C-alpha cells in the first residue's frame, strides 16, 4: 500500500499522476487538483450528491493484494503493484478518495460512457442554442463539443414539455431544456430551506415544477438560475437581454449587508446587465440574494444626481470645494460619515474631520438577518469605519445627538458623505438650521437642502474595499464609468481634506501608502496585493462591541447576546 504522507491526507493515482488530497475529497475534486477534467452536470460542490447525470463516470481500481497474506500482488511486466480495476465505470462525484485509489479518465470505457450520456441528454433536448440565453455558458453546449457525436441518430419525435413556466416572480422555466439534474431542487431544500420544487411525471417525461399552490419566490431563487447547467431555469430579468460573451466581468462586493457576498458584475459599454455570485468558500460559497442582484438598477435611476450645485446654481468642482471649505473653516462643523463608504473613503473622511476637529457620526442601518447571506447590519462597512478609526463605538440608531447639537446651536455646518440626514433622523426644521455639504448619488431631501452638492459614484462605478462582519477586507472594482457630472468620492474627499489642511492623495495606490503608514492593522498592505478572496483582519480589538449581526452562512457572532 501507498503510505499516506499525513494522517488526514490520502494518496491517489489519477491518470498515472500521484497526488495527496485531504480525506473526504471526492474524485472530481481530486482530479481537478491534477488538472484532469471530469465532466459533470448534477454534481455541485455545495449541494448533496445524487449521482444522477452519470456524466462523471470514470474507471476506478484498487491495488491488488493477496487475499490470504495481504501482501501486494506485483505485475511482473511493470514491476509495480497490480491494480484491480472495477469492470464497470463508477461515478466520480459520489466516490470519495481512499488510500491507493487508482483512477483512469481516458480509457475507451470512459469515453464511451461519456459519449453515451451526452447523446442521451441531447436526444430530447430542443437544441435551440441560437435562441437560448444560456448559450455561451451552457454546460451541455460546452461538453457536447468534447463528448458529443456531432450528428444525431435520433429520428423519433422529441418529448414536448412546457416552454415558459413562471416558477416565481424572477425565474422562468423552459422544461424542454431541463436535463433533470435536480440541482435546483436540492438548492431550494438544502440551502434556501424553501422546499418548493420537485419533479412530476416519470421517466423521460419528468417535468420540473413547483408544488401545488407554491412559488419559487424566496430571496435566493435566482441562485437556481446560476446553478442550472443548461438554459432551463432563466432569470426573467436577464433572459434575451444580452449574449454573455459580449459581457465584461468585474469582481465586486454585495453592499446589501455586512455579509459582503462576493459578486461579479456583468457589463457592456457602460451598461450593467446582471450581477451573479462569485465563489468564496469563506463568505458566500456560490450564492447571493436576489435583492442584491437588483442593486445595479439604481445606477441608471432617474433620481441620479448629475450636476454639481452651489447654493442651488450649477457649478464646478473647484468652486464647490472652495464653497465647502469656506463653510467648514467657519467652524461648528459635524461630519456624517457612512457605513456604505469604502475603507479608503472612510479614511479620507477621518482625515477631513480630524483636520476640522469635527465630531463624526455614522448612520446605523439595522434590520433583521435572514440567517443566510443578509445580516442584521445592512451597512456593508461599519467595521471599516472602526478599522480606519473614523468611529470608535458602534453608530446609534438615529442621529439624535447631532439633532440636539444643531438645536443647541453647536453645529452650523453638516458634511454628509452620501447619507440622507432626514432618513437618518434629523427633522426638516433641524436641517433648515444648518448649511449642508452633501456628497451623494441620488436625489433625496438632503440633496435638495444642500448648499454644496457634489454628485458622486455608485459602488459599481468606483473601486475600493469593505470590511465585512468577519473582519474580512475585500476589494471591489469599477465595472462601469459614472454618469456625466459625477465625481469619484475619493477625489472629492481628498480635495476637501486638502482644502482644510490635511493633504492626502486621491489615487488608490498612493492613498494606500498613506493608509498603510497610519493604520497599523493595514500596515503591510497595498490595494494591488489584496487578494480577490479577501484578507481576514484581527478582530480582537473590537471583540467587546455589541455588533448587531446574528448567525449567517460562515459567520457565528462572537457573543451569544448579539444572536
Amino acid at each position, binding site marked *: 500500500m501507498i503510505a499516506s504522507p499525513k494522517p488526514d491526507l490520502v494518496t491517489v493515482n489519477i491518470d498515472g499522476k500521484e497526488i495527496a488530497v485531504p480525506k473526504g475529497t471526492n474524485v472530481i475534486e481530486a482530479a481537478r487538483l491534477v488538472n484532469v477534467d471530469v465532466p459533470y452536470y448534477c454534481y455541485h460542490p455545495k449541494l448533496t450528491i*445524487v449521482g444522477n*447525470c*452519470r456524466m462523471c463516470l470514470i474507471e476506478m481500481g484498487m491495488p491488488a493484494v493477496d487475499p490470504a497474506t495481504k501482501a501486494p500482488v506485483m505485475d511482473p511486466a511493470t514491476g509495480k503493484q497490480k491494480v484491480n480495476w472495477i*469492470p464497470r465505470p463508477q461515478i466520480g462525484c459520489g466516490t470519495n478518495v481512499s488510500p491507493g485509489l487508482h483512477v483512469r479518465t481516458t480509457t475507451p470505457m470512459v469515453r*464511451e460512457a461519456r459519449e453515451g*450520456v451526452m447523446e*442521451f441528454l441531447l436526444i430530447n433536448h430542443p437544441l435551440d442554442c441560437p435562441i437560448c440565453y444560456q448559450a455561451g455558458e451552457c454546460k451541455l453546449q460546452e461538453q457536447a463539443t468534447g463528448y458529443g457525436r456531432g450528428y444525431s441518430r435520433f429520428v423519433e419525435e422529441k418529448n414536448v414539455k412546457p416552454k415558459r413556466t413562471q416558477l416565481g416572480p424572477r425565474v422562468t422555466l423552459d422544461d424542454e431544456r431541463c436535463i*433533470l439534474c435536480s440541482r435546483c431542487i436540492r438548492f431550494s431544500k438544502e440551502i434556501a430551506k424553501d422546499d418548493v420544487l420537485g419533479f412530476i411525471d*416519470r*421517466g423521460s417525461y419528468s417535468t420540473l415544477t413547483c408544488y401545488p399552490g407554491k412559488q419559487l419566490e424566496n430571496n435566493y431563487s435566482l441562485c437556481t438560475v446560476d446553478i442550472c447547467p443548461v438554459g432551463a431555469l432563466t432569470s426573467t430579468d436577464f433572459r434575451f437581454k444580452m449574449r454573455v460573451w459580449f459581457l465584461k466581468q468585474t469582481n465586486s462586493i454585495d453592499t446589501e449587508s455586512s455579509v459582503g457576498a462576493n459578486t461579479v458584475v456583468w457589463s457592456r459599454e457602460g451598461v450593467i446587465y446582471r450581477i451573479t455570485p462569485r465563489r468564496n468558500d469563506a463568505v458566500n460559497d456560490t450564492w447571493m440574494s436576489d435583492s442584491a442582484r437588483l442593486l445595479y438598477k439604481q445606477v441608471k435611476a432617474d433620481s441620479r444626481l448629475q450636476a454639481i450645485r452651489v447654493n442651488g446654481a450649477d457649478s464646478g468642482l473647484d468652486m464647490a470645494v472652495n464653497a465647502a471649505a469656506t463653510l467648514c473653516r467657519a467652524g461648528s462643523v459635524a461630519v456624517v460619515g457612512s457605513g456604505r463608504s469604502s475603507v479608503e473613503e472612510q479614511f479620507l473622511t477621518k482625515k477631513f474631520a480630524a483636520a476640522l476637529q469635527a465630531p463624526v457620526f455614522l448612520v446605523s442601518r439595522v434590520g433583521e438577518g435572514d440567517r443566510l447571506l443578509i445580516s442584521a447590519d445592512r451597512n456593508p462597512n461599519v467595521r471599516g469605519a472602526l478599522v480606519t478609526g473614523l468611529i470608535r463605538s458602534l453608530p446609534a440608531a438615529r442621529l439624535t445627538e447631532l439633532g440636539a447639537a444643531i438645536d443647541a446651536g453647536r453645529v452650523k455646518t453638516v458634511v454628509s458623505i452620501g447619507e440622507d440626514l432626514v432618513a437618518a433622523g434629523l427633522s426638516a426644521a433641524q436641517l433648515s438650521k444648518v448649511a449642508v455639504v452633501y456628497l451623494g448619488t441620488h436625489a433625496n431631501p438632503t440633496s435638495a437642502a444642500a448648499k454644496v452638492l457634489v454628485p458622486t459614484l455608485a459602488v459599481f462605478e468606483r473601486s475600493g474595499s469593505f470590511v465585512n462582519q468577519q473582519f474580512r477586507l475585500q476589494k471591489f472594482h469599477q465595472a462601469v464609468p459614472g454618469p456625466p457630472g459625477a465625481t469619484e468620492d475619493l477625489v472629492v474627499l481628498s480635495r476637501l481634506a486638502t482644502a482644510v489642511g490635511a493633504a492626502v492623495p486621491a489615487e488608490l495606490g498612493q492613498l494606500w501608502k498613506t493608509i498603510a503608514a497610519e493604520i497599523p492593522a493595514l500596515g503591510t498592505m497595498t490595494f494591488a496585493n489584496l487578494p480577490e478572496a479577501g484578507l481576514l483582519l484581527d478582530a480582537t480589538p473590537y471583540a467587546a462591541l455589541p455588533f448587531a449581526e446574528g448567525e449567517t452562512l460562515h459567520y457565528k457572532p462572537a457573543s451569544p447576546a448579539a444572536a
Partner: protein
Amino acid sequence: MPAPAQTRIIFQHIDEPGYTPDIACYVRNGGYEVLKQAVKRKPEELIEEVKKSGLRGRGGAGFPCGVKWGLVDRKSGKPIYLIVNADESEPGTFKDRYIIHQDPHQLIEGTMISCFANNVKQAYIYIRGEFPHGARILERAIAEARGAGLVGPNILGTNYSCEIYVHRGAGAYICGEETGLIESLEGKRAYPRIKPPYFPAVLGLYQCPTIVNNVETLCHVKYIVQHGGEAFGRIGTPGNTGTRVFCVSGHVQRPGYYEFATGTITLGQLLNDVCGGPLPGRKLKAVIPGGSSAKILKFGERFKGKRKVGAEMVDYDWGVEDVPMDFDSLGMIGTMGGSGGVIVMDDSVNMVEALANINAFYSHESCGQCTPCREGSLWMKKITTRMVHGTARTEDAALLKSVADQIPGRTICAFGEACSWPTQSFLAKFGDEFKQYPETRNAAKRNDAAALI
C-alpha cells in the same frame, strides 16, 4: 427423462380445497408452531441456520439471504428495520400474489421469525399499489395475528415486541428496487439511491440499517427454521438450495405456477412435461426464464462450456431444453433465474412486436432519475413502436443494439440492466428477424391493401 414430482413447500396449501386465508385455518394446519419454537432460541442461532441453508433471495438477484443478514450494521445502536418486498412487478411473475392472497399467515410467520432473528422491532410490508385486495388480506391477517399475540407487543408472552405495518405503493415498478422502495416508504419519489454510500444494510430506511427481503424468501426462512438449515440445503442442488416457484405464462398448454426443488428440473421438462408443451400445431420459439428483464433464450441455440459438478469441472453441451432451472446454470448461459417468471413464446410471435411490448413497459416504468436509463429506455421504445406502427428501417436493428449497449452498468440501479437486456438479447438472437422486419411489414401492408380491393 420424465419430469420429477413437484416439491411443494411454499405453495403447499395454495389452491387447496377448503384452505382459507384466516388464522384459524393456518393454525389448524400447524401454523405459528415454528414461531413459538423460534422465540425460545437464540437469534444468532436462527441467523446461523439461514446461513447454513444457503438460501438465495427469490426477488430476482439471487443474493444469499444469510450474507445479506450478515452485512447488517448491528453496532450502530440504531434500530434495524425489516421490509418485506411485496412489490411484485416483474412481468411474468405472480408467485408472491398467491402467497399473499391464499396463505398470508405463512408470510407473517416467516416475517416474525426473521424479525426476531435480527432483533427487528418494526417491519413493513411494502405491497404494490395494484394489489389492493392483497393489502386488505394482509391487514386482516396481521390484525388476527396481533389478536393472538403473535404480532405486536410481547409476542407469545416473551419480552420481544415487533410490529408489522402494511404500506401500499402507488403503482411503480421501480419500488421493487430496494433503495427505491425505501425512498418511497419514507414518503418520497422512489428514486433509487446511490450505492455507495446508501447500502440498506447500513444506511437504509430513515438512514438506519435495513433488511429488504422478498415475500417468498421470508416464507423459506420459516421452513429453514422449522427443519434446520442443513435439511433445507439438501433440497435442490449445492449453491441452489430449496425450492423454486416457477410462474409459467404464454404459449404452453398448461400455464401456471409450479414448485420444484431448485435445479432438479430442466427447462424442457418444465415446459413440455409439466406444462404440456406448445399449443396444438405450434412450435416453441423462445423463452424468457426469469421475468421479462432476463435475457431471452431461443429454441435451437446451444450452450457449451465447463461447469463445476461436485469438485470437478465437467463439459456441458445444452440445448435450451436441457438447461437446469437454477440460478447458476441460467447465469452460465447468459440469462438469469430472476424472479421465476417463465414467459414462453411460440412461432406465432413476431419478435419485433414482442420487444416493442417489453420496451413500452420499461420506458413507462423508468423512474427518470439517471440519464442512461431514462433516455435510453424511451428511445428504444420509440424505435420499436415506430417499427411496428410506422416506418421500419433496416438500420434500426443496429441502432437499437447500440442504444441498448449504452445503458447497462452505467445507471444508479439495476433497472438499467433490466431495460436493456431484453433489447440486447432479442437483437443478439433474433437479429435477422429485426433486419427483415421492414420487408415483412411492407409485405403485410401490401397484403392488407390487396385484401381491401
